[in-house]
């Protein structure tokens, strides 16, 4: 008899959460449900219509992030100028009250982008299953939690049952080995991975990130990496928890204390992929070969090293990819063969659930310190949460940014998707630390180049895309 092969981290978390199986579909228990104003109103309406309760309000946490303005938050929801956004925020306020769900409303120092708040509060813990009506829920995988985005019908399903109906995905391991060059970090890793596998390369898989370069990342870096997993098509990304994880979690408001901590820790230490586990797919990437990376087109897979050139549509293999590339070049106002550093920047956005944590702001501030934003460039920094903002102010980062000519704004999703007033105007070109360069994502006709916080800060100073290594 052949011995059973070992389990991957994903297998272990999955097995620990299967409540039941119905018609070949698992009913998976959900440990933490994060909710926000945009993808929940219809779910609560569905609960009311069917007279259903929220099964575990205590395993649910609400924030206001997607369409909050990034100034004047202390004035409260009723002062939000956009009528529809105000209605959504008010609706969330009423829903959490009716169903007894903990809520950090706009203006509360604990509020911020949902994927910044969960980890910061210690709500996100290893081994958990975590869902949210937002695709970048993959972020929480940095803690060794199985975390992914769901649609509104599923939000309603989780509210009502604290479970999700799921089919198991396949296992994919991405190993990033070796040491990254100075100026190269998690964002560059993530863009390089998507460039390698394509935006659909991870479809049907859960990706586990491993290798020495991943181990060396801080929690912030791991969150950036897992955040972008969805842009590679995989619903969830995972990093096995280790001392870096435990160190980050210790003492956070919602992490266990005393004996509970010891118990939790001994469980968390079992959360790793067994040596003899089998992956359905595996790739290895050499960290040392990754340069600071940016996007040139309108899909996150359209990546190029900052030292590279805008590709020609002819270099793509299929007709629809060529058509998409032609369209992307036209939309982006770029010519094939142009060095990417030719691209002049109008706006710089440092923020979003990808890169708005304290470490991101520290790196950007280091580049900005003692320098000036190029004339004609609007540069903004939007911290991921009230607590990130407070920490940055304590360290004097806000002063560094202001002195260099950056705007220092209040927390929220902001120009990541431009549902609030922070938006690009047609034709404006933006160096952005967010996660999507889709057409119109940051404002109709806006042109987005994704990059790391260090690269975005350098672009603000230079006035065009530039290699941050010249600014270290």
């Amino acid at each position, binding site marked *: 008899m052949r011995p059973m092969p070992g389990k991957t981290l994903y297998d272990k978390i999955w097995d620990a959460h299967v*409540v039941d199986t*119905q*018609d*070949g*579909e698992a*009913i998976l*228990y959900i*440990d933490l449900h994060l909710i926000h104003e*945009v*993808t929940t*109103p*219809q779910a609560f*309406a569905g609960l009311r219509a069917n007279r259903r309760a929220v*099964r575990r309000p205590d395993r649910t946490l609400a924030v206001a992030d*997607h*369409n909050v303005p990034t100034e004047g938050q202390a004035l409260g929801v009723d002062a939000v100028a956009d009528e529809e*956004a105000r*209605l*959504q925020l008010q*609706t969330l306020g009423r829903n959490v009250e009716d169903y007894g769900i903990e809520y950090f409303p706009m203006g509360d120092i604990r509020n911020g982008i949902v994927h910044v708040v969960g980890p910061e509060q210690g709500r996100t813990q290893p081994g958990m299953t975590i869902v949210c009506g*937002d*695709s970048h829920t993959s972020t929480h995988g940095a803690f060794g939690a199985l975390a*992914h*985005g*769901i*649609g*509104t*019908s599923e939000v309603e*399903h989780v509210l*009502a*049952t*604290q479970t999700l*109906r799921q*089919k198991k995905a396949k296992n994919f391991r991405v190993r990033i080995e070796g040491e990254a060059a100075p100026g190269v970090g998690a964002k560059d890793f993530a863009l390089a991975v998507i460039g390698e596998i394509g*935006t*659909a390369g991870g*479809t049907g898989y859960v990706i586990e990130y491993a290798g020495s370069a991943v181990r060396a990342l801080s929690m912030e870096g791991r969150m950036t990496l897992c955040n972008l997993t969805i842009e590679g*098509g995989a*619903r969830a990304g995972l990093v096995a928890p280790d001392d870096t994880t435990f160190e980050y979690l210790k003492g956070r408001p*919602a992490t*266990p204390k005393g004996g*509970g901590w010891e*118990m939790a820790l001994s*469980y968390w230490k079992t959360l790793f992929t067994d040596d003899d586990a089998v992956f359905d797919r595996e790739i290895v990437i050499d960290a040392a070969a990754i340069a600071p990376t940016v996007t040139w087109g309108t*899909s996150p*897979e359209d990546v190029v090293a900052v030292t590279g050139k805008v590709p020609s549509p002819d270099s793509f293999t*299929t007709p*629809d990819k060529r*058509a*998409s590339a032609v369209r992307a070049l036209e939309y982006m106002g770029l010519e094939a063969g142009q060095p990417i550093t030719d691209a002049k920047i109008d706006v710089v956005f440092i923020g979003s659930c990808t890169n708005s944590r304290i470490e991101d702001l520290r790196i950007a501030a280091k580049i900005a310190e003692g320098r000036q934003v190029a004339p004609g460039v609007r540069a903004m920094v939007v911290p991921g949460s009230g607590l990130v903002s407070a920490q940055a102010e304590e360290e004097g980062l806000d002063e560094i940014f202001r002195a260099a000519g950056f705007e220092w704004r209040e927390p929220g999703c902001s120009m990541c*998707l*431009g*549902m609030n007033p922070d938006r690009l105007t*047609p034709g404006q070109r933006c160096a952005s630390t967010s996660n*999507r360069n*889709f*057409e*119109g*994502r940051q404002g*109709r006709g806006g042109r987005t180049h994704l990059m790391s916080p260090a690269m975005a800060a350098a672009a603000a100073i230079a006035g065009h895309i530039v290699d941050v290594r010249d600014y270290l």
Partner: protein
Amino acid sequence: MEAFTRLDAAAAPLPLANIDTDQIIPKQFLKTVERAGLAKGLFYDFRFDEQGVEKPDFVLNQPAYKNAGVLITGDNFGCGSSREHAPWALMDFGIKAVVATSFADIFYNNCFQNGLLPVVLKAEQVAQLMDEARGGNHVVSIDLEAQTVTSPSGAVFSFEIDPQRKQKMLQGLDAIGETLQAAGSIDTYEMKRALSQPWLEGA
């Protein structure tokens, strides 16, 4: 949810890869607290120019495709945001099935929650449907029970679909009601877990 059994409808060709949910329904339409009425935002930036005037060359603006019930499109349709507004908008417009070579995962899943049928066919089959849909007769037939798509010229293509999902689509079943039948198992699971991982309780 409405059941899906069989559909005979005009098919609109949209030959682009990686159409994301921001393109299917841009963010300004996500501020609603309703499910209905999203057709006006469907493919908004494809359909309208900056002044809000219809672009005559976009497929769904052409008279022959205004009543399309099927969309034929490229790889990785529905990538990006998890917004369920994307299938809601498609359905509200009258699209009941999307045929593509591949779909993004969350979108694919959201389709089944709403009775919108995503059909995966091979690249050459999608190309043929795309070609035929551009011609004079654009009516395709989709039979979910038989798992076939019949092109305007009569070519029949079979597609794969998960059997459970198919059954639920055919019957228009509500997933929550079904899961609640297992409420006893959820209770048991929670009791066990409260013992093995007590730190997760009593926050």
